[in-house]
């Protein structure tokens, strides 16, 4: 029995279960221990450092780097949800016998380093588009949200319909509205590409595309503990090569490419001669000749440049000038900062209790596709809720207190009197008045009708009025930079129309 492989499998399943719980099941994880798991992922942790929020999780990527120096790329099989998901896919494909037998693949350094450089430029330039589509955690998060939550929510709807008459409401918590179609389509396409890539070449994404993998690979090739093949015992049967999901074992030469090995420990199990071990023994390090290095660097930079160009073009082509800016979640600070830090992992979307936070299509421009925005046709931003800012692992939605949120202005309200029932029909409606948490929309009694009036300076842009208005007469004009709302002075309680006969605590009645 191979203990290491079992540890890997159990740890992987535990991590995947925790992610499932986070993205699909628990609606309100406020402050819970398991929000640690997304926060210690490599890219979120790195971005937290840039966000300068002072979060302790910023050290996580350094710890991961140091750990890789000692034990190799264990991160990719023990902590990375995308890596573990691919392991699960591989297992399923094994069961259905639709997986190819592996063989050693040449490393593709130009592609790998180009992607790495591209990701690096993407983070440092603040144009996060590339990372949004490459970061393993965010790719996984979006898939989990878009593909796992609909069936789970359908199921919970069904269970809830049986549980509710018995007074059990816990299953009702999960019932959510329908997901926008494009989110589902993107999720399916990404999953499909992973199904194909794992079928054809195992952990191809992790060994060739993933920038985190490539970066950790640079470290793991010098790691203290490694997989090694004992040349004296090896009979060149090639079984280890055929089982290697990373395609990094060259059985002919008896060598392992440690920059690509993700420590699945399958080879240890399969070797009939116990010739493969994991430990300190160092097989001779192959160093790329200097001339080849220059070529590598040049090629990588050129490719990365090609990758950056369309992103820059998209950003400055003014795509997002169309229509209004999106309403950003409270804590996003500014559109520039939000786009610099948000990898669109959709953890906030999956957690939003009122369903107002939704993935956007091109509200942030094509470069900001799938970033979350407030969709008031779906819900409103609850005044006393800051869940999205609590769960965001990148601090793209910076942590804010409920108190801070009460005066945080995401945008200001605008009332179209030509559409408003109270103005056009001279009838009480007041839906906006009663829902407004700050009295920025208030009623003014005129000829017996409560006419809505607006004090935009007091508006927080929560959209409660937009969501409830029966005639779409109100809308929120979003700010590109969130500002402070005024605390409005409320009029003192009006004098009673009839002088009270019986004050409280007397025995006289008012009627």
């Amino acid at each position: 029995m191979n203990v290491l492989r079992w540890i890997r499998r159990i740890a992987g399943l535990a991590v995947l279960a925790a992610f499932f719980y986070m993205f699909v099941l628990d609606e309100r994880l406020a402050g819970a221990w398991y929000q640690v798991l997304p926060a210690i992922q490599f890219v979120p942790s790195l971005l937290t450092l840039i966000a300068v929020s002072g979060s302790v999780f910023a050290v996580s990527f350094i710890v991961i780097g140091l750990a890789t120096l000692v034990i190799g790329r264990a991160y990719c099989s023990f902590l990375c949800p995308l890596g573990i998901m691919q392991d699960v896919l591989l297992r399923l494909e094994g069961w259905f016998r639709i997986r190819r037998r592996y063989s050693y693949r040449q490393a593709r350094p130009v592609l790998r380093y180009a992607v790495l450089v591209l990701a690096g430029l993407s983070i440092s330039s603040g144009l996060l588009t590339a990372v949004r589509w490459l970061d393993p955690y965010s790719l996984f998060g979006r898939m989990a949200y878009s593909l796992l939550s609909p069936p789970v929510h359908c199921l919970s709807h069904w269970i809830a319909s049986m549980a509710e008459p018995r007074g059990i409401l816990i299953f009702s918590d999960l019932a959510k509205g329908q997901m926008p179609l494009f989110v589902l389509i993107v999720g399916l396409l990404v999953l499909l590409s992973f199904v194909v890539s794992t079928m054809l070449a195992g952990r191809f994404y992790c060994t060739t595309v993933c920038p985190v993998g490539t970066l950790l690979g640079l470290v793991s090739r010098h790691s203290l503990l490694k997989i090694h093949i004992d040349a004296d015992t090896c009979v060149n049967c090639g079984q280890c090569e055929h089982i290697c999901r990373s395609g990094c074992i060259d059985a002919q030469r008896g060598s392992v490419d440690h920059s690509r090995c993700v420590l699945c420990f399958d080879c240890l199990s399969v070797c009939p001669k116990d010739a493969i071990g994991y430990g300190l023994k160092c097989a001779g390090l192959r160093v790329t000749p200097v001339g080849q290095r220059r070529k590598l660097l040049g090629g990588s930079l050129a490719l990365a440049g090609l990758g950056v160009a369309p992103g820059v073009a998209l950003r400055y082509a003014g795509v997002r000038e169309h229509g209004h800016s999106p309403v950003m979640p409270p804590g996003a600070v500014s559109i520039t900062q939000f786009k610099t830090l948000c990898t669109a992992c959709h953890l906030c979307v999956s957690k939003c209790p009122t369903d107002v936070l939704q993935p956007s299509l091109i509200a942030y421009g094509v470069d900001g596709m799938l970033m979350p925005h407030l969709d008031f046709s779906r819900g409103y931003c609850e005044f006393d809720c800051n869940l999205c800012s609590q769960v965001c692992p990148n601090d793209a939605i910076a942590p804010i207190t409920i108190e801070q949120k009460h005066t945080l202005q995401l945008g200001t309200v605008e009332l179209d009197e030509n559409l408003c029932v109270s103005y056009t029909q001279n009838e009480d409606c007041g839906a906006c008045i009663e829902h407004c948490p700050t009295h920025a929309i208030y009623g003014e009694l005129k000829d017996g009708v409560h006419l809505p009036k607006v004090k935009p300076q007091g508006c927080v842009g929560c959209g409660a009025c937009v969501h409830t208005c029966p005639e779409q007469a109100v809308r929120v004009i979003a700010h590109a930079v969130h500002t402070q709302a005024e605390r409005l002075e409320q009029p003192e309680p009006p004098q009673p129309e009839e002088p009270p006969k019986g004050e409280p605590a007397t025995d006289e009645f008012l009627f």
Partner: protein
Amino acid sequence: MSEKISINRRDFLKKSVFTGVASYGTLSEFGTQNLFAEGDGLPDMVAVKNGEPDIMFDRAMDAYGGMTRFVKNGATVVVKPNMSWNRPPEMAATTNPGLVKKVVQSCLEAGAKQVYVFDHTCADWKMSYENSGVQESAQRAGAVVLPANDSKDYVAVENPGAETLKRFKVHEQLMNADVLINVPVLKHHGSTGMTAAMKNLMGLVDDRRFYHKNGLNQCIAEFCLYKKPTLNIVDAYLVTMSNGPQRARPQDLKLMKYLMVSTDIVAIDTASAKILGKKPENIKHVQIGHDLKIGTMNLDALKIQRIAL
């Protein structure tokens, strides 16, 4: 919290001993009449003041013939509190949880087979149910609390007597129920001037936007043409006098310590308007309700029993 309650209880005990001794003579005449007379002897409305909500409720129901008058053995009951907003109980934007608990208990004691509690909330229902404290207190009392923000739980009904609200959807449990007990909280309301018994019934309907769009006050009143609650219990203990219905400041609240019970929904709202310091005829849905003969605004024509604790 518990300290506050115990002080109030002590106060109550002191007061009830004094009033009990002082009114011994009157009680023996008046009280027995209430206990034994059916129908004609009972008041049209009972108003109690100066007590805690649960205690006022007990006194009111005693004077009103007890819950068994409305809830028969084996009945299915819907208790409709106001738990429409994500506000804590101390802000009184929602019905006093202690009162709801007492109402549910009293229905079950009267022999109710099942008591359902729900509200089509304005704010997020999970937060509102939980943070208003009503869900927990109703469940503890033995009620089944149901969500009511999903259209699938509603069924279409006809309302032939109405001018505007002719067809609408009500919660399916309302269709199955034998008894509807309306337990609103009295508040100032930015859209209608006041919310009490009639306005509270909006939480039984699926499409609230229809109301807002087509004459809010008319629709509120016309719902009562479809169904009048078996009993209305208005919680006017801590009353939002201004900036209602949900984000009033502490200084907008006034400790009035009233509770009314009545089968006449217009009359109980008329009394409520007076507690709020408003002219009842200025609350349009109350006036429409009176005009549609759903009930009467003429409190002088009613037999109102007033109990000051």
